[in-house]
């Protein structure tokens, strides 16, 4: 068992070393070795996940004195399967995709090291191993993004990523220092035990350890998961090879959500930190989505789309739905990975034939032609109102009797409702020969989305945090005063519904409404078209700092 636990992060390292040294002998066939060992890593990780599902207790394998601890627990085993699985697909895809690129073997070596760093990160059982792996992910990503050593722009944007990651490393290093200073150990399980025994422990300046470390860990997660103001690297790192983009958008960027989950035993003792996490996630989700809609560059649009999803994932952590954030990162990772990996094929096919059948979906989406037969909107609105109530009642009955008291659960259903309703309104525009069949599909889709949110959240909670007390403590730590909570839910509902009404009006009335945008609207548009001037600010700051450094060098010469 111990060997299997160590084997997961060790196999990609072995693969990288063998690939490097056998490249001269095997030529391009060396990629098969890398792919084969990654598949083996995936199989070992799957075995461990199966054992975890079957109830194998948590274990920690220590490779050194005090640090070098590799964990086996539900979170690490689940994440290891996801990472090795995505990495295997990316490896397999790269065999042909990178065939004509120079540095073919180097690419697989770097990919293997990146996989090892990610696997070590999710299995790290102590702060030093975590810091090493966390830091290595940034370094490896820099060199993977700059695989084409002739591309200045790839390196320029790779440097943005690297610097943002390094800035994000600062709070994690400080968190490690505070924890070591307080508890005198690097071991995460021991730290969490001691924290549970004395949740009010204090550190420098009389501050609560849980609050300080919780805030620092959250800040590290924000940088890694492209939260607002630390997001600029994500939409601009499309110069790297497509498999790297896939790996980045399908796995690396989710490290923030993982990190917050790893420190879940700490967050149950925090007060306001999760509220700030929620606000940062909310702001990122909104801004990421707005910027995504405003882009005319498809790649940047995809980058901002990931940013929006990252905001959503961090927001889920902020409401205490830690396990749902893990589900979200897995689901969206697979979705985004598929999008990136299939992009090349789609472009290739489109060069010969656009392949778009001129059916109703095409005429609606591309030609913006309204369908002829539609369901009454009132019926659709009715569905959006009735189904959530039905789901709430059923969930209360089947899943958790105290569901109404859980703010996090209500928020989850709220997310489910918004997502499901969006889906429903999209479907509403489609024409069907059998309107009742379409209505049935709408109902099923809506129920799947809303029930999916509830049940998957429950299943992930059961697996990742099988102590029900801990799960409820997380929700409690994220909870706010019930009056404020209700007011916020009502306010958000009003905003969402007003948005839908506005969208409906624009679409229904079309040219009949006043087309001339207001001055305010144009200012807002210019603001988002400049991406809130964040990039300009950072570029200006970079130029000024380098110029100031050059000036100092002129003044002091070599002294």
């Amino acid at each position, binding site marked *: 068992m111990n060997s299997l636990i160590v084997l997961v992060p060790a196999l990609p390292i072995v693969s990288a070393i063998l690939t490097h040294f056998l490249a001269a002998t095997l030529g391009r066939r060396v990629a098969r070795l890398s792919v084969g060992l990654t598949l083996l890593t995936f199989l070992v990780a799957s075995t461990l996940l199966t054992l975890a599902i079957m109830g194998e207790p948590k274990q920690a394998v220590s490779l050194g004195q005090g640090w070098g601890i590799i964990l086996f627990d539900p979170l690490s085993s689940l994440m290891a399967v996801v990472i090795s699985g995505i990495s295997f697909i990316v490896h397999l895809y790269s065999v042909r995709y990178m065939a004509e690129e120079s540095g073919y073997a180097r690419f697989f070596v770097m990919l293997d090291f990146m996989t090892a760093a990610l696997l070590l990160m999710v299995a790290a059982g102590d702060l030093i191993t975590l810091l090493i792996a966390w830091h290595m992910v940034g370094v490896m990503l820099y060199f993977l993004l700059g695989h084409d*050593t*002739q591309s200045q722009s790839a390196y320029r944007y790779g440097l943005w990523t690297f610097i943002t990651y*390094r800035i994000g490393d600062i709070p994690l290093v400080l968190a490690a220092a505070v924890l070591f200073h307080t508890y005198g150990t690097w071991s995460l399980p021991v730290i969490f035990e001691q924290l549970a025994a004395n949740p009010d422990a204090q550190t420098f300046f009389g501050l609560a350890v849980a609050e300080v470390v919780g805030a620092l860990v959250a800040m590290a997660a924000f940088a890694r998961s492209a939260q607002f103001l630390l997001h600029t690297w994500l939409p601009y790192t499309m110069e790297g090879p497509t498999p790297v983009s896939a790996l980045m958008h399908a796995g690396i960027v989710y490290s923030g959500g993982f990190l917050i989950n790893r420190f879940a035993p700490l967050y149950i003792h925090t007060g306001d930190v999760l509220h700030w996490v929620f606000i940062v996630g909310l702001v990122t989700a909104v801004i990421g989505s707005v910027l995504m809609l405003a882009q005319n560059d498809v790649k940047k649009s995809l980058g901002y789309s990931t940013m929006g999803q990252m905001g959503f994932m961090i927001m889920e952590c902020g409401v205490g739905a830690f396990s749902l954030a893990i589900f979200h990162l897995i689901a969206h990772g697979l979705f985004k990975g598929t999008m990136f990996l299939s992009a090349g094929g789609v472009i290739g096919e489109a060069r010969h034939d656009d392949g778009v059948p001129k059916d109703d979906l095409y005429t609606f989406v591309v030609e913006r032609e309204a369908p002829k037969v539609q369901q009454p909107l009132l019926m659709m609105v009715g569905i959006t109102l009735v189904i959530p109530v039905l789901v709430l009642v059923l969930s209360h009955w089947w899943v958790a009797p105290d569901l109404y008291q859980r703010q996090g659960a209500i928020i989850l259903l709220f997310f489910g409702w918004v997502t499901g309703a969006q889906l429903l309104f999209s479907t509403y525009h489609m024409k069907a020969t059998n309107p009742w069949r379409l209505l049935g599909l709408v109902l099923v889709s809506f129920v799947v989305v809303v029930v999916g949110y509830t049940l998957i959240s429950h299943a992930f909670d059961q697996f990742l945090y099988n102590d029900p007390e801990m799960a409820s403590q997380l929700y409690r730590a994220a909870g706010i005063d019930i009056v404020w909570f209700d007011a916020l839910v009502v306010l958000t509902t009003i905003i969402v519904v007003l948005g839908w009404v506005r969208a409906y009006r624009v679409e229904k009335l079309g040219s009949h409404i006043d087309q001339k945008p207001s001055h305010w609207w144009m200012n807002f548009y210019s603001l988002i078209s400049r991406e809130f001037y964040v990039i300009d600010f950072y570029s200006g700051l970079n130029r000024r700092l380098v110029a100031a450094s050059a000036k100092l060098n002129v003044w002091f010469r070599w002294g």
Partner: protein
Amino acid sequence: MADLGFLLVALFLPVFPLSIVFNALFAKVKPPMLRAGLLLGWPFVGVVLFRALEPAVPQWLVPMALFTAVFYAFRLLAMREVGIWSGFLATSVWACFWLPLLYGDQDVLLYVFWFGIPLAVLALLVGGLEKRYGAAYTDLYGGLAQTIPRYSGVFVVTVLAVIATPVFPTFLGMLNIVVASQPVVAMTLVGLWVLWSWSGMRLIQGMIVGDPSDEVIDDLPMVLTWGFGVLMLLLVVAGFALTGDL
């Protein structure tokens, strides 16, 4: 008035403005082996002198040492001459050694070697570059990854080691110093660490990225590549072995 013993130590573990002495000397010294020796030996003398003389350390030393470290790290950002770059980085690193000395950390000599060895290797690599191109400047010729790939590989690994990147022992040494420090000092140190990383990556970018040269340039001989590779590997292994439980 600082005593003579302290001033002597502050010359070898450079504190601004005494740091000018080392950098002036380093700029004058051209042979790579001599530069490598300076990078290894200079702070060693400082640490030994500190332990032998046990000078009275003024209260302003810690802020001044941190200022020196940040001052030279900041200047690295725009420094294009790779030789002087390594001298500035060494000054920035050595100024930090005051902290573990004052904390009573017994591993300071290890830190001297952990940082000194890759810095010395960098000095040798700079010498190799000057021999091939006549000068070692970033953004001057570029494209080394295509022109001399073996040299570029060793160069990249060495720069990563000197800017305290994991898995090199420089990372563990820096982490040790940060953990032992009070909050304000620790925050300054991690900021300093980011400056090293930023300038290190700018250096790498300015050297290896770009179109290959039309001129045929001799790459690093295979034996030397292996030699540098094994040295770095030994450094990593020694770092893990000697770090113990930190």
